[in-house]
């Protein structure tokens, strides 16, 4: 952990399982018990079939870079530049904004990526993604 902590989310009832999962190094997403579709971010109802029934299902942690940006202007001291932000499309369907653990010059749309975990505070661990090993 750096001296200046990164911005930490404040978990609530709707997403406690998501953050508890990350603390255990598991990526859990809501999965509808009726239509079987995954969704992100955590919300009350399945937007596909309007069911309230869901489980927290473990994802593979694999996906592809759907888009990205490299932040060159420092907007917060805990995020040094250049800082890679990826939009990852998970194998399960949903997309996550995440920290890209690769040099900016290696980022490419379509590149396969895999999950890593970054401890931000004693309570919060966040996902990050690196290039997938072949």
């Amino acid at each position, binding site marked *: 952990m750096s001296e200046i902590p*990164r911005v930490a*989310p404040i978990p609530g009832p709707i997403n406690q399982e998501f953050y508890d999962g990350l603390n255990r190094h598991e990526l859990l997403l809501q999965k509808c018990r009726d239509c079987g579709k995954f969704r992100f971010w955590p919300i009350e109802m399945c937007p596909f079939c309007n069911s309230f029934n869901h489980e927290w299902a473990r994802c593979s942690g694999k996906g592809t870079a759907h*888009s*990205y*940006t490299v*932040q*060159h202007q420092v907007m917060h001291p805990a*995020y040094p530049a250049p800082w890679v932000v990826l939009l990852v499309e998970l194998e399960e369907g949903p997309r996550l904004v*995440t920290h890209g653990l690769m040099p900016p010059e290696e980022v490419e749309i379509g590149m396969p990526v895999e999950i890593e975990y970054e401890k931000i505070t004693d309570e919060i661990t*966040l996902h990050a993604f690196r290039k997938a090993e072949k």
Partner: protein
Amino acid sequence: MMETLKDKACIVGIGETEFSKNSGRSEMRLALEAITAACEDAGISPKEIDGIVRFSVDSNQIDELARNLGLDNVRFFPEVFFGGGAGCGIVQMAAMAVALGKAKYVACFRALNERSGFRYGQMGGVMPMQGHFQYSIPFGLIAPGAMVAVMGRRHMHLYGTKTADFGEVAVAFRKHANMNSKAMMHEKALTLEDHANARMISDPLRLFDFCQESDGAVALIVTSAERAKALKQKPVYLMAAEQGTGSWMEMMTSYQRENIADLEEYTRLAPHLWKEAGIGPEDIDCAQLYDAFTPLIIMQLESFGFCKRGEGGPFVRDGALQIGGRLPTNTSGGCLSEAYIHGLNQISEGVRQIRGDSLAQVPDCKHVLVTAGSGIPTGAMILH
């Protein structure tokens, strides 16, 4: 019973403060200056205002505005949320109210010390991470411009759009600002080379892909078409007005939708807008499109059917958005080069174009398309 708003309401007065980096006065003072200026422009007394529509994010509340203006019977006072997305929505609310006789003269306004006070670009460091931004900001996607950069990069990937196309947008609007003495960038020239060589902020977006940060206020007076005929100014009719959202809508980061390079909130409202107006994109003489960041212009042109999906880059080339081009756009400089008054300054410029007294007047301007904020629940309207 005609179920349409077409030509039932008019914008009859516009009022603006100066646009600056530090107004030196309160947001309430700015709002009151703009509202009273709009009344004077319309030729009515501020005491005749009986409706006020505000942005939810505006700090000025209806009761305090009414106390200051000495209004003792405000009959209509809704508000519209979603930052700059409220811009056209507040006018639509006002128009529906005057068309149904729920108010006679409705003031619409936005007043903000966005540069000297709370800066949206800096929001990441200060917002409590409880809402949906907790899924972006903690990962280093902190500012709205970076959130749009992710969409712009995808547009480049899918369609071959070039950063020089973003430059065309910035240069066109700067040229218009150079004609507008009120514009914050009035005296600063900008070339495609300047754009290409500028400091990288959020790849692929460079300095001139970002809007201004501004202090100031703009107000509009809306009344019925009948009352408008008796007033001082040439009435500017609301030919159509719509609000809209898209799939997986969330403020600035609607990244779950199938195509994140499609501003669906415009794509889905556009057919309703054209239908109500009874015209199409080919009939638009001038556009005032919300331009917080340059890629949003290219995507909007596609959403409203000025070109096919993916062809926004080629569309803007060769000065197409400049006066004399095929779609003169943001003729006062827009958010990029005039001021960031959450797009209300673009509505007042649309009114000037129809009146015929813009500082960058489009000859024989009959129809103007105006849009509100992008990447959020939004709105659009056609003035004539």
